[in-house]
């Protein structure tokens, strides 16, 4: 099991409280490098909240989120880093980041964790191409000499911008949107917007890609294409994927590891096969009432 032997993300004792609501309660899990890890659970289980904690949009009430950009996050090194009070360090086992200490934009810029949103957040009034160029902000900013050189027209900015366009073209080609590059992102059909958001996240060269319900609202063909794309990201681009998904056929087909949440706590964690037969999961999905129907849902697509 890669999440045990080669973990790149360690979520430990994560707790998130909103006023009186305990959205996440002492949650711990790990995600393996090179895995597609699925985070599933009924509505309101706290999946999106976990994402928001990992990507720094919420500061967890308690808990630690250790991430190894390179190498692995061995518990001894993480413990050592925690006591130093620093946010990240090159440790013997790898480059380790404590995400709960980092501001959101650094998590993407430094640690290499990119994400998409449940309610798509594209730059609607900018073109498809511009969306992908904005995603390459940090390297381009450097190339433009933090604007000063770029404003004066000296330095490598023009060349770097052309390279950025090439990278954008590569990803647009991959998601079949090359001929819509000059249209506003907001006027794409829903399915295309979902894929564009993934491409935009990929333009930041992430190590871990967090996708919040990428298949929601897609038709079966689009959904199949998405599966293909995610496998391709994992296999050819060395990107680990953390995936929230309600569609069990997607989960069962492409994930290597499944974590099940209910009411903010983990109720199961294992391979898709193990999850499919876990009675606790079945119960969580449909109450305890109708096991057979629950079995049909959870086991769907197998």
């Amino acid at each position, binding site marked *: 099991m890669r999440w045990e032997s080669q973990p790149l993300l360690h979520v430990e004792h994560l707790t998130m409280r909103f006023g009186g609501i305990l959205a996440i309660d002492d949650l711990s899990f790990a995600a393996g490098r090179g895995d597609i890890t699925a985070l599933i659970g009924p509505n309101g289980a706290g999946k999106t909240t976990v994402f*928001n904690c990992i990507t720094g949009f919420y500061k967890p009430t308690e808990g630690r989120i250790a991430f190894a950009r390179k190498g692995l996050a061995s518990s001894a090194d993480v413990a050592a880093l925690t006591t130093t009070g620093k946010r990240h360090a090159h440790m013997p086992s790898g480059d380790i980041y404590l995400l709960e200490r980092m501001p959101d934009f650094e998590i993407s810029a430094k640690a290499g964790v990119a994400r998409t*949103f449940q309610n798509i957040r594209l730059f609607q009034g900018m073109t498809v191409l511009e969306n992908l160029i904005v995603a390459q902000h940090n390297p381009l900013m450097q190339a433009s000499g933090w604007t000063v050189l770029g404003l004066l027209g000296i330095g490598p900015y023009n060349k770097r911008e052309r390279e950025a366009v090439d990278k954008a073209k590569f990803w647009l080609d991959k998601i079949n949107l090359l001929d819509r590059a000059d249209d506003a992102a907001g006027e794409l059909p829903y399915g295309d917007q979902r894929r564009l958001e993934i491409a935009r996240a990929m333009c930041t060269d992430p190590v871990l890609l967090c996708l919040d319900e990428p298949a929601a609202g897609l038709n079966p063909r689009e959904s199949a294409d998405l599966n293909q794309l995610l496998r391709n990201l994992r296999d050819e681009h060395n990107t680990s994927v953390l995936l929230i998904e309600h569609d069990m056929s997607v989960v069962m087909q492409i994930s290597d590891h499944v974590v099940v949440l209910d009411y903010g706590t983990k109720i199961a964690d294992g391979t898709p096969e193990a999850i499919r037969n876990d009675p606790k999961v079945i119960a969580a999905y449909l109450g305890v009432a109708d096991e057979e129907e629950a079995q049909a849902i959870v086991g769907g697509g197998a």
Partner: protein
Amino acid sequence: MIFDALFGARFLFKQERALGMEFFAQQMINGITLGSIYGLIAIGYTMVFGIIGMVNFAHGDVFMVSAFIALLLFLALTSVIGITWLVLAFIIVLLLAMFFTSVWSWTIERLAYRPLRGSFRLAPMISAIGMSIFLANFVQAVQGPRNKPIPPMFNETIAVTSGGAFDVTLAWKQIVIIAVTIILLTVFWYIVQKTPLGRAQRACEQDRKMAALLGIDVNRTISITFIMGAALAAVAGTLYLIQFGNVNFADGFIPGVKAFTAAVLGGIGSIPGAVIGGLLIGMIEVLWSAYVSSDYKNVAAFAILIVVLIFMPQGLLGKPEIEKV
């Protein structure tokens, strides 16, 4: 925290501090009087913000218009109709000013804000700024640019303490102001808490779409919110006239900002917060002028506004908001 910031500058204190407790008590009385007026205006800001999430920039000018209406009605009643009993004149003026100001506020909402609901987000704000400019200049055009004085009324004072270094006094007009504020706030509180109207309002505050689905007439509820805010502003306008004895077309802006500060300080959206915020702002202003410097009293108001918005945007009684991702 705010008090510390303001009174840390002890070296600035003027000589009056020697006058001790009595002087302070007098300033507190003056502060509560002024604060009542700010509180009444602040409710209008807070209710409108609560229900449609908009800073009704023109509210300060509605308050100014109401003071003019009260002034003109007062003159008409005393000089044309010839009512000599001041209390009666005052009550009639108060009620009529509430009515006519409500007509203004209703019309403003109807013409300048309602067509913009669902338009882009800055539109209502900019429209409200335009309305504020229009109102001030309209009043200047039809009533002239000069200060309008009225004869002093309710001016007799009662000595609260005597014989000390400083006599603390309470003017009748201060009693009137505080009493009217308390009575109207009670009535208003009853309406908001206990009637179907108030329930509709609170429903719209929570979720306008859902309220509409449940059969609440959202447009009507919003109109009534504007009317209630304006009626209370009219009370404030009438009391302002009594307290200061004159009004000018430009008098909407600064009291408007201070009342807005009060609403923010109390926690925008919260009606008791607006009243508490108003009292605090009134007292801070009076104490600041008395002990520190009256030149910078408006700077103090703006500074409080900035400090509160930056460091405690939820105010004293508001709920903290976590940005949803």
